[in-house]
Structures are given as structure tokens and as C-alpha cells.
């Protein structure tokens, strides 16, 4: 069995990652999944969170917001609506988005879409966390 697994992350704009990894962690909708080469075929939705993979001696982090993953024994393909490498994240923007969402949640009000704001907050927080790990 091969000791690496091919990881591909595709967004509507482009393919952002195509790499060989020794292990991958993906934020499945029902919890984080650790994937090693030779994993059984699996299909899952991805929640807002962080994809971590080890390639050689490096560990890389990618922030994702909603996605869909297909795991095959020698390949993992992830469709993500947005995905950013740690180095590409605009921390200032994420911070601003976080504050905006927090302010709205605090303010409350009848026409506030809680789920939407909470999602926004979570996305921003993830991006900030991932960016810190670069």
C-alpha cells in the first residue's frame, strides 16, 4: 500500500490544492475525520472548519466553509465553496467580519437571522485560527 494519499481541493474558482499527504484531517459535518492512505471509500459533507494535512515534514492548514468530500483509498477529493490556505487569509478582513457578526448578535432584534450570523462568526473565527497557524 502506498504511504501517501492524494489530496485535491476544488473551489468554484480553481483547484487550490493538489498534493500528496501522509495524513489528512477533515471537518466532517458529524465531526472531524482522520484519513490515512487506504481509507475505505466514503462520502461526507464538510462543515465550517479546518483541513489539516501532513505532506513530508510540513503540516498545512486550510480553512473551509461548507464542502463535500469523496474519500477513496488512494485519493481524497474535496469540493469546497470557499477554501483558503493559511497564508492566503486576509486576517484583517476576517477580524472585521467577526466583529460585525458579534455586534449584530449582541444587538439582537426581531429580524436578526441568528443562524446566519452565527455561521458568519464561525467562519471568521476559523479563518483567524487557521491564519495563526501558518
Amino acid at each position, binding site marked *: 500500500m502506498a504511504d501517501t494519499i492524494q489530496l485535491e481541493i*476544488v*473551489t*468554484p*474558482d*480553481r*483547484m487550490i490544492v493538489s498534493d500528496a499527504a501522509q495524513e489528512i484531517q477533515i471537518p*466532517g*459535518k*458529524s465531526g472531524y*475525520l482522520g484519513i490515512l492512505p487506504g481509507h*475505505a*471509500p*466514503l*462520502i*461526507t*459533507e464538510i462543515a465550517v472548519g479546518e483541513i489539516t494535512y501532513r505532506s513530508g515534514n510540513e503540516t498545512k492548514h486550510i480553512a473551509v466553509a*461548507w464542502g*463535500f468530500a*469523496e474519500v*477513496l483509498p488512494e485519493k481524497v*477529493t474535496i*469540493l469546497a*465553496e*470557499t477554501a483558503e490556505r493559511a497564508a492566503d487569509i486576509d486576517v484583517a478582513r476576517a477580524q472585521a467580519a467577526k466583529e460585525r457578526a458579534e455586534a449584530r448578535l449582541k444587538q439582537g432584534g426581531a429580524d436578526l437571522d441568528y443562524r446566519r450570523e452565527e455561521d458568519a462568526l464561525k467562519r471568521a473565527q476559523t479563518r483567524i485560527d487557521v491564519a495563526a497557524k501558518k
Partner: protein
Amino acid sequence: MANILDIRRRIRSVKNTRQITKAMKMVSAAKLRRAQERALAGRPYAQMLTNVLKSLVQRAEIYSPETREPLHPLLVRRPEKSITLIVVSGDKGLAGAFNTNIVKAAARFIESKRGKNIDIEAVGRKGRDYFRRRYKVMRPKAQEQNGDGSTRAAEIQIVGEQVGVLNKIAFDHARELANAVIERYTRGEADAVYIIFNEFKSVISQRVVVDTVLPIGEIGVHEIQQAEEFSEEARRRAAEAAVHSGVGLREADTSEADKKAASFAASQVDYIYEQPAGELFRDLLPKYVAIQVYRALLESVAAEHAARMTAMESATNNASDMIDDLTLAMNRVRQAKITKEIIEIVSGAAAL
């Protein structure tokens, strides 16, 4: 007869115009190339998403076993009483017939749906301006003003507009637009959603189409309601402009990427489903709608640049022709003047 100075001034002015149109042509060509790349880069995602849905259709119970009715609201076909129409035009003019074509096709489509309620979502300033002159904008307070409980401003109304987003189009725009129409559809405010845009396969393969966004019929199949192919003449001119600006004519070869995308989530193995297939299907459908809208926006942007490039190419050529004509006229005038002077001298000498 015009004097030489006037003609010379004219020539200079036309030359300046030619400079501008030429520059615009080159800029459009560069933007077109980039837009084409973006449209292409979005292909794998769209393909893969389509594939997943296709394979889920077979596994998930999306039709009720007894009534054969679809279980997902976005698949339900209702009698068409209200329609939402997304019209994708351009933000700027000077693009030949690009905006006119869109608007004309939209007008024809609206005419064909006469008697039904039509809500227009206008993307792009040019289309928005046209509809604003003709139809009312929906007011949020219309319900109170009408007094009869109806929320409509008129039978045909504008419900949304997006202006100035086309030059930095992002997936977020498409997602927002898609979510807006999905919401309208699920609330029953629209029984069908169509999108009208300039489809762009390559410079020489374009048409203005009305595509069905909702209800979703068969996954991966476009239900084209109305299509207008480019005329032979327009195609020839576009091809010429592309050649002169160094833009490729053919569709880029994507067969390899397509093949790879086609195998996504479709291997002949038993997948473990982390979530029930039905749930996956339900979550994925809105994304499918968004990607359809995104594709339309990207192709429209590419088409707009192509149209502008073609228009500017003809403008540049026309300017060159005009300069030639004017130069000829100027030379004639100068010759005539010289001849006249010689005659004057000769006849003056003869008189002595």
C-alpha cells in the same frame, strides 16, 4: 471646397479616436482572456457537483414511492403563474449589440409569458436601466399601499438589481442571487425561475439563451427555453477581431479535466455515507443552483468583453478607413490649389 487646415484637423481628431478604440480593444482582449480562464477554472467544480448529484439521485429517495411526486421542493413542478427572471447584461456600453441582444431577448421572453406575474432580477447596469424605464420597482411597502393584500407593484416588476459587480464577480454574488431565488421559489412567490444571459463557449460559439434555473428537471441537463444564435456576420467579425487581438478561437481542450471530474464520487465501490443520501442531496441542490448562476455570470462577462473587443475592432477599422478617405480628400484639395497657382502664374506670364 473644404480647406486643408480643416481636413487636417479632422484627421488628427479621428486618429486620436482610433488610438482610444485600439487601446480599448487591447484591454478587452486581455480581460476576455482572463474571463475565459476563470470560466474554465470553474468547470471542474461544476462538473463534480453535477456528478455527485447524479449519483445521489439513484441512491436517495427523491421521489415519493406512491405518488411519484418529487420530495424535494426545488424539484416540484407547479403550474406557472409567477415567474422570476434573472437578466444578466453588462455594466458598461460600447460593446456593440451585446446589451441590446440581451434586452431584446428578455423582452421577447416576457412577451411570450404575457398574463403571468414576472419578477425581474437585473444584473448589470445596462439591463437594469432598460427595465427601470419600462417597469416598476417593487416597493417593500407595496402591501400597505395597494390595500388589497397584494404585494406586487405591477404585473411585471423589478425585485432586485445588482449593479457594478460584474467586473469583480465572485462566487458569493452567485450564491446570494441563487439563495434569493430559491427562497422565492420555496415560499411560492415564483413557480419558475429563468435566467437569460449570453452563453459563451468560445469567441465564435455564442448565443443568447433563456435557461431554466428552477424547478430543477434532470440534473446536468439544461432546459433551454429560448435561444438566439449569433448571426454569421457577427461571428465572422468576432473571429476576425479575436485573430487580430491574439485571442484563441477554439474552446480550450478540457477533455482530460472533464474525464477526471466525471469520475468524482462515481466509482464503482460501496461508499460509506456519513450522512444519509437524502440529506446530502438536499444540502447539495442549492449549491447546484448557485453554480448554474455562477456559470451564467462568468460566461456573460466573457461574452461582454468579446463583444466589446469586436466592436472596438470595427471602430478602429472604420477610423482607419475614414483617415484614408480624408487623406485622399486633403491631397486632392492641395493638388487643386497647386494647379490653380500654376495656372495663375502661367497665365500671368502669358499676359506679359
